[in-house]
């Protein structure tokens, strides 16, 4: 191993950034051993910086572009007798009004009931938004993809459908049935009315076994991505900071 040491120069403009990033990186890694002052420092710094960054982004991307700019444009349009300006003015003001309801528990506890209206609006609206897509993507698509696989194993069925290609292999049939049984048994596991007894117990047990294989597979699949992230950080320390090239 021949090392070509080229530690980043802490006095150059780029070098100081590398040094700071390196110290912070080590600070986080130090948590692996145990809680310590450096980690506490880094953790508190991160929370501060993170919270500050959110404010900056919210100001520039939300308030400045979606409230202040339309208000300015709208008022200008109204001055020029263009009635379309009103919507630019009213929309952000309405949103700000609902937003300000959230403050009442803090600034005026007596008006706390107004906050409940804001919550009711937010939760009601977003519950409503989800209903249609959930039914279509989580329920119908899952059922239809399971049936699609079965259809693909039947020459007759596949012939009647433009988007499905006939797969005559016996492995395709095996897989289609495997998935079908897995889904059916998995669903039985989730029945809340059924005590897991007798036939239900066997089906629910099969269901949970298949769930476990799925969980194990996802776990194993994730390892590589996580190790890649670590490799990236270590390469930063070795190459960018220490200038170590093996």
């Amino acid at each position, binding site marked *: 191993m021949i090392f070509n040491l080229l530690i980043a120069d802490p006095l150059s403009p780029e070098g100081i950034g590398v040094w700071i990033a390196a110290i912070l990186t080590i600070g986080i890694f130090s948590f692996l051993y145990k809680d310590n002052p450096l980690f506490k420092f880094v953790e508190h710094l991160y929370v501060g910086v993170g919270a500050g960054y959110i404010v900056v982004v919210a100001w520039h991307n939300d308030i400045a572009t979606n409230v202040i700019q339309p208000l300015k444009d709208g008022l200008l349009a109204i001055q020029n007798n263009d009635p379309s300006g009103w919507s630019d003015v009213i929309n952000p003001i309405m949103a700000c009004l609902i937003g300000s309801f959230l403050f009442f528990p803090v600034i005026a506890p007596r008006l706390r009931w107004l906050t409940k209206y804001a919550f009711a609006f937010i939760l009601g609206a977003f519950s409503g938004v989800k209903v249609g897509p959930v039914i279509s993507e989580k329920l119908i698509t899952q059922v239809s993809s399971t049936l699609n696989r079965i259809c693909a194993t039947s020459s007759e069925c596949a012939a009647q459908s433009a988007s499905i290609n006939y797969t005559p292999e016996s492995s395709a049939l095996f897989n289609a049935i495997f998935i079908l049984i897995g889904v059916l048994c998995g669903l039985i596991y989730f029945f809340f009315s059924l005590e897991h007894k007798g036939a239900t117990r066997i089906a629910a047990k099969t269901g949970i076994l298949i769930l476990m294989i799925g969980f194990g597979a996802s776990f194993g699949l994730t390892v*590589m991505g996580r190790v890649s992230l670590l490799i990236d950080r270590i390469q930063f320390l*070795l190459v960018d900071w220490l200038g170590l090239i093996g």
Partner: protein
Amino acid sequence: MNIWDKLQSIDRRWIFLVMFIVIIIPLMNPKSLDINVSEPTRKAFERIENVPSGSNVLISWDFDPGSQAELLPTAKAMLHQLFEKNVNIVVITLWPAAPTLADTTLNEISTLYNKQEGVDWVNLGFKPGLDIVVKSMGSDIHEIFPADDKGKRVENIPLMKDIRNYDDFNLVIDLSAGSSVDFYVEQAHGAYGADLVAAATGVMIGDFYPYLEANQLQGLVGALVGAAEYEKLMEKAYGLEPDKATAGMQAQAKAHLAIIIFIVLGNIGFFAKRKKTSPKLESLNK
């Protein structure tokens, strides 16, 4: 506490230390890897080898620094190969955070081969719209990319003079951390008949094998393994030194092996001394 108990209760800090060591050693000391090159990677390499000198290749750079560990090595190896063969490169990206990474890499490698921006290669930058961008490049690239990443008009870029659509490219390469391969297969290959080679991350790769079987893709480089294989091929063909993918792959292999060994050790301890059930068991049994 006997040895079996100890095997079952190794302090997690020892595990952390072992992980750290098995990853850092290969990174500091990369060796050329003795791996078998898989068929999809070989096909990708050979397809790029067959691009005639002087023709054009389109690279869709669809990953950002978040996925660079898996995709950048392949991107670099392919750029070396293309410049070595004197092929002109046009880069576009469908990811907003990608242009800077693409630019840095292109600059770094093109200078090694004395290649000129605008003449031998160009970075047209990012355009939002995903599949719509891919589709529109079938009719006129100049329309969808009126200027390059630095704002220079395409009319004034010598390389872009004769490039209008997919017909002007010998090959399209998609380096993808998402599902953009789907768009290229549907549009660039399906609708406009372009030849396609792709590189993808480990999470996505499984979705794309069927394209290879159906010859919709001419080659597929999958994840870090694929990248390491590609570096191996480049080493054999052009004597290029194995780089980060090879080192990363060794670190990956060691890390996976270490985890499996720890699992085995824990189970050896467990079976040697079947203890009474712990609360963990119930949660798995429920």
